[in-house]
C-alpha cells in the first residue's frame, strides 16, 4: 500500500469513495462466498446449534426438549464422565510434553547441513500422513501380549511379567500415548524446523565467541528465538491431544472397559451410538470449552511473557 504513494493519483480516487467501497465490498464477498456458504452452514451454524442442544434432551426423534442445566447436573454425577475426563487429561499430560520434546529434539538434530538430512526429515514426518487405521492395526499387532514383537524385544532384556498393552487396563493408555507421539512428532518437528530457520546465525556466533557452551547457547539463544514457534506448537498440540479420537477408536475402542475412553469418544458414543444427542452435546460443550480456554490461557501467558 505504502509503495503506491509515488504513483500518480488514479482516476478512481476521485470518484465518490462510498460507491467504490460498496463495489469493493461486493467483489470481496463474491470471492469469499463460495467457501463461506459451506463454512457457515457446516462449521459456524453447528457450533451455535451445539450451545442450544447442550441444554436439551433429545433422542433424534421428535423435538428437542429444553431441560436447562439438567445435562450438566447429570455430568457432575456421571462417574463414567469423570473417568473419561481423567483419561483425556492423562493422555494430554503425557502426550504433550513427550511430543514436544521429541519434536524439538528431532528438529535440533536435523537443523543442519549434512548428507541425508532430507531423508531423515522425511522418515520422521512419514507416520503423520499415513492412515490411522493401518498404523493402529499394525501397532496393535506389534503390541500383542504373547508373541508381539515389542514384548519379544523387551523379553531380550530379561523383562518378565510383560504388559498385555492394549488388553490391559493399566497399559492400554500408555500404548496409545506411544503411538500418538510416534505419529505426531514429525509434524511438529517440521514446525520447529521452520522456526529454527528464523534464529539468526550471528547470535550463535557471538555467543560462541563469548565462550558459551552449546547447552548455554541452546538455553540463551535458540530457545528465546524459538518462543513464537514453541507457543504455536504447544497450542496446536494441546488441541490435538484433547480431541484425540480416531486412533483410540481403532486401537482400543476405548477399552478395555473404559480405560482409554476419552471425551471425544464419549461424545461419539452418547450421540451416534446411544442417540442421546442432548447429553452428548453437553459433553461436546465441555470439550469445546476446555479447548477454547486452554488456547486463551496459553495466548494470554504468551502475551505477558512477550512484554
Amino acid at each position: 500500500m505504502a509503495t503506491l504513494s509515488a504513483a500518480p493519483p488514479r482516476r478512481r480516487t476521485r470518484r465518490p469513495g462510498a460507491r467504490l467501497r460498496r463495489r469493493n465490498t461486493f467483489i470481496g464477498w463474491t470471492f469469499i462466498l463460495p467457501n463461506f456458504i459451506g463454512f457457515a452452514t457446516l462449521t459456524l451454524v453447528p457450533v451455535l446449534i451445539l450451545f442450544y442442544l447442550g441444554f436439551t434432551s433429545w433422542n433424534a426423534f421428535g423435538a428437542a426438549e429444553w431441560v436447562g442445566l439438567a445435562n450438566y447436573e447429570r455430568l457432575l454425577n456421571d462417574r463414567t464422565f469423570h473417568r473419561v475426563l481423567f483419561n483425556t487429561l492423562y493422555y494430554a499430560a503425557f502426550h504433550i510434553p513427550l511430543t514436544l520434546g521429541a519434536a524439538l529434539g528431532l528438529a535440533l538434530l536435523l537443523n543442519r547441513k549434512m548428507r541425508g538430512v532430507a531423508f531423515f526429515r522425511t522418515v520422521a514426518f512419514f507416520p503423520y500422513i499415513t492412515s490411522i487405521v493401518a498404523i493402529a492395526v499394525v501397532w496393535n499387532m506389534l503390541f500383542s501380549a504373547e508373541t508381539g514383537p515389542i514384548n519379544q524385544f523387551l523379553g531380550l532384556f530379561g523383562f518378565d511379567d510383560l504388559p498385555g498393552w492394549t488388553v490391559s487396563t493399566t497399559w492400554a493408555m500408555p500404548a496409545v500415548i506411544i503411538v500418538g507421539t510416534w505419529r505426531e512428532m514429525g509434524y511438529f518437528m517440521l514446525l520447529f524446523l521452520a522456526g529454527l530457520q528464523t534464529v539468526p546465525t550471528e547470535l550463535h556466533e557471538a555467543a560462541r565467541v563469548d565462550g558459551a557452551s552449546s547447552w548455554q547457547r541452546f538455553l540463551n539463544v535458540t530457545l528465546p528465538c524459538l518462543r513464537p514457534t514453541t507457543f504455536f506448537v504447544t497450542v496446536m498440540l494441546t488441541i490435538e491431544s484433547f480431541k484425540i479420537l480416531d486412533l483410540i477408536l481403532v486401537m482400543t475402542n476405548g477399552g478395555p472397559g473404559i480405560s482409554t475412553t476419552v471425551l471425544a469418544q464419549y461424545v461419539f458414543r452418547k450421540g451416534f451410538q446411544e442417540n442421546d444427542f442432548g447429553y452428548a452435546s453437553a459433553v461436546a460443550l465441555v470439550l469445546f470449552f476446555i479447548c477454547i480456554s486452554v488456547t486463551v490461557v496459553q495466548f494470554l501467558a504468551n502475551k505477558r511473557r512477550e512484554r
Partner: protein
Amino acid sequence: MALLTLDRPAKTFTPPADFRPDRRTPGQVIARVALYVGLSVASAAILLPFVWMVISSLKTNNQVFTVPIQWIPDPVVWSNYVDIWATSNMTTWIRNTLILSVGVTFLQVFTGSFAAYGFSKMRFPGRDVLFLAYVGTIAVPWQAYMIPQYIILSRAGLSNTLWSILVLQAFGAFGVFLMKQYYDSIPEELSEAARIDGLSEYSIWRRIVVPLSGPALATLVLLTFVNTWNDYLGPLIYLRDRDLWTIQIGLNSFASQYNTEHALIMTGSVISVLPIAIIFLAGQRYFVQGIATAGLKG
C-alpha cells in the same frame, strides 16, 4: 538479544578450537559419526512398524507371529496381494475413496484459494473479523460440533451418501488459511499494476495470483488429498452402506471380521498406505515447505 554479550565481562578473543569448519578435529568426526548412527537408529525405529507391516504382508498367516521374529519371509507369499481383492471389497473401497479424495481436493483448492484472494488482496469492511472467525475455528475441535453438523446434513438428506463427506471436508478453514498466508507474501504491487492495466479482480486471481502460488497450491492439494484418503471418523459417521465404505472403514471392518488373517490384514494395510506413500514421496519437498509456512505465520 544483547543479553549474552552484556552481562559478562569482555574477554580477550581466542578463536575456539572448532573455528575452522573445513578441517575437523577427531572429536568432531566422532560427534558426526555418532550423529549419523543415532539418526539411523531413530529412523529405523520410526520406520519399523511400516517395515514389519510390509514383511508380514508377504508371509503366510502362521509366520506373522513366530518367536523369534522372522525378518525375511520364506516363502514370499505374493499371493496375499491377489487374495485380498477376492476376500474383501477393496475395489469398491478404493473407488469411493478416490471419488471423495479427488472431489474434496478440487472443491477445497478452488473455494479456498478463491476466498483467500478476497481475504488477502481485497479491502472491505468486516474482512478481518470474518477471517478471525475462520482462524478461530481452528481451536474448535471437530468432535465438539460433529453432532449438530450431522443433524444438518441428515436433514438435508445427505447422510449415507458420498455427498456428505464431500461437503463436510470441502469447505474447511484450513485451505483458506494456508492460501491466504501465501498470497500475503505476493507483493501488492503486482495486483495494483494489474488493476491499473484494467484487469478485473477475478482475472488478477486467475492470471496472476494463482499461477504464482504453485508451492502453496501443491501443498494444499497434497494435504487435502491425504487427509481425505486417511479420514476415518467422517466416513464412520456418515457412510453406513457397505457400498459407500472408504478404504479406512473397509480395512477396519476387514481387520475385525477376519481378525486371525494377520497376513491379509497387513496386505490390506500396505495397499491403504501405498498411494499416500507415493504421493508423499513425489511431493515431499512441497509438503515440508508448505506446512512450515502454513504453520508459522498464524
